[in-house]
C-alpha cells in the first residue's frame, strides 16, 4: 500500500473508533442535539410572537419568526456539537491509548482526522434532526434541490472549520472541564449576530461586531439559499471565514498534537 492509502486506511480506522465511542456514549450526543431544539422551541413559542412582529414584514408573528430563526438555530447546532468535539478530544488525550498510537507506525494525523470526520457526521445528523423539528413547527423553506445542496455545503464548511478549531481547543486544554467550557462562546455567537434578530435593531458598537463576526455572513447565506432573501457578498465572506478558521484550526491542532506529550 502507498502512503496515501495508509493515510486513508488509518483515518478510516480512527473514524470507526470515534463512531463506536459515540454509540457507546450516546448521552452526550443527545444533550448536544437537544440544546438547539430547546432553543428553537423556546424562541418560536415563547418569544416568537413578539419577535416576529418586530421583523416588520407584512405577515409577521410566529410563522414569520420560524423562518427567520431556523438558520441561526442551525449555526447554534454546529456550535453545540463542536463543544462535544472539544470534550471528546480532551478526554481522549487523557487516555493512555493516545500514547500507544504515538508509538505505532501509523499515519500520525489520523487520530485527529478521525475526530474531525466523526464530529462532522455527528453534527450533520444533529442538523438533520433540528431541520426536521423546524419543518414540523412550520418552517417552510422555498429552496429547491440546488439550493438545498448549496446550503448543505455551507453548513458542512462551517462545521469543518469549527471542528478543526475545537479539536485544537480540546488539545490545548489540560482538563476535560476546561475543554467543555472553552468553546462555549461559540454557542452565543448566533445571538450576537443576525441569528435571532436583525443586526439593524442593535446599538452601534454591538451592531458593528454583529455585522463583522463570522456567523452573520454564514447565517445570511443560509437564509438566502433556504428562503430566497438577498445574499449579496455574504456567501464569499462566509466561505473566506470558513476557510480561514479551518486552516488556523488545522495548523494549530497539528502543531499541538505533534509536540511531545507532557507527563
Amino acid at each position: 500500500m502507498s502512503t496515501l492509502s495508509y493515510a486513508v486506511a488509518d483515518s478510516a480506522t480512527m473514524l470507526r473508533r470515534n463512531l463506536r465511542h459515540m454509540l457507546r456514549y450516546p448521552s452526550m450526543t443527545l444533550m448536544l442535539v437537544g440544546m438547539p431544539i430547546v432553543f428553537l422551541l423556546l424562541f418560536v413559542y415563547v418569544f416568537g410572537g413578539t419577535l416576529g412582529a418586530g421583523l416588520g414584514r407584512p405577515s409577521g408573528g410566529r410563522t414569520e419568526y420560524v423562518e427567520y430563526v431556523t438558520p441561526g438555530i442551525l449555526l447554534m447546532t454546529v456550535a453545540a456539537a463542536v463543544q462535544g468535539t472539544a470534550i471528546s478530544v480532551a478526554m481522549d488525550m487523557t487516555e493512555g491509548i493516545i500514547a500507544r498510537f504515538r508509538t505505532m507506525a501509523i499515519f500520525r494525523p489520523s487520530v485527529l482526522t478521525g475526530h474531525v470526520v466523526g464530529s462532522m457526521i455527528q453534527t450533520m445528523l444533529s442538523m438533520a434532526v433540528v431541520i426536521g423539528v423546524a419543518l414540523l413547527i412550520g418552517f417552510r423553506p422555498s429552496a429547491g434541490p440546488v439550493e438545498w445542496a448549496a446550503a448543505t455545503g455551507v453548513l458542512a464548511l462551517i462545521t469543518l472549520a469549527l471542528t478543526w478549531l475545537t479539536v485544537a481547543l480540546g488539545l490545548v486544554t489540560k482538563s476535560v472541564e476546561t475543554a467543555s467550557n472553552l468553546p462555549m462562546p461559540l454557542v452565543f455567537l448566533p445571538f450576537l449576530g443576525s441569528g435571532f434578530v436583525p443586526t439593524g435593531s442593535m446599538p452601534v458598537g454591538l451592531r458593528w461586531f454583529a455585522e463583522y463576526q463570522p456567523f452573520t455572513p454564514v447565517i445570511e447565506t443560509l437564509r438566502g439559499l433556504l428562503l430566497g432573501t438577498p445574499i449579496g457578498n455574504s456567501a464569499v465572506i462566509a466561505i473566506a471565514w470558513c476557510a480561514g478558521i479551518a486552516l488556523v484550526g488545522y495548523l494549530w491542532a497539528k502543531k499541538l498534537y505533534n509536540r511531545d506529550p507532557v507527563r
Partner: protein
Amino acid sequence: MTTTPSQPAIRASELRKSFGDHVVLDGIDLDVPEGTIFSLLGPNGAGKTTTVQILSTLIGADSGQVRVAAHDVARDPDPVRAAIGVTGQFSAVDNLLTGEENLILMADLRHLGRREGRRRAAELLDQFDLVEAARKPAATYSGGMRRRLDLAMGLVGDPRIVFLDEPTAGLDPRSRRTMWQIIRDLVAGGVTIFLTTQYLEEADELADRIALLDHGKLVAEGTANQLKRRIPGGHISLQFADTDGLEAAARTLGEALRDDDALSLQVPSDGSVKSLRALLDQLDDASIGVAGLSIHTPDLDDVFLALTGQPDKEKEPAR
C-alpha cells in the same frame, strides 16, 4: 551502516533529557542484545519511564544517540515503531471498546487485513485468558485483565522488541506470576524485552542483565549475580553444638563475628563453592564438628541500598 551481522536490539549512548531545569536522564548508555531480557531497575522518579518513552519514540531526547531495531529513533521513527510493542505503566487501552475491539483496532492500525486481524485477535484473547471477557468493555476489566489486554495489544503486530514499563506494578501475586510466565514465553520466541521495574525480585527472576538507574544515572550494570558480588555483606553462618566447638572454631578461623549466646560464628565470604570448600576443609583439619551452616549472599536489596545510598522507601504500597 554497520558491518556486524548481529545488531543490538537497543543501543543508546549519552542519553540526556530534562524537563525544564529538572534533569531526568543525565547521560545514560544502554546496550541490549537481541533475544534477551534487559531490566532497568530504580526507585520512583529515577527516570525509568522517561527512558522507555524516548526508546519507544514517544518523546525526544535532548541529546544522545538512540538506535532501536537498527534505526535511529529521532531521524527514522517509523521503522522503529513498526518493530516495537509498548506496554505502559498506565493501561493504554480504549475503555469504551471491548477487549476484542481493542485488539482488532490494533490489527487494523498494523494493516494486518480483516481476516488476519480477527485471527490474531482471537489467538491473543485465548493466549491471555481473555476469551470470556472479549465482548465486554475494557472499562469493566480488573487490574490484571487490563494489564493482560494492554500487553496483548502491544503484541498484535508480532513486534521483535517489547517495552514493558512496570508491567506488574499494582498486580496481585498471582497475576504477577502469570505476567512473568508470559514474558518468559515471549523471550523463548526470540523477542527482546526491555523491562522497567522497581521490584528487585522481578529483575532477579527475569532479567539477563540488570541496570540500576538512580537520579538519571546508571549506577551499576551486570547480571544479578555480578551485581550481588559487587557489594560486601556476604557471609557463612556456622552453628555449633556447644561452647567448646565455638571456641575451637573461633581460634582456627580467626577473623569472624562471634555470638556466644547463639553459639554461632559469622565468617565473611563471597558465598562461592570454592570459599565454602576451603572453610569446611579448615574445620575438618581441626576436627571441629559443625551443627549447622547457612550461606548469606547479598540480595539485590542490599545491592540497591549500597549503590543508590538510599533505601527503596518509595516502594508502592499497592504491591
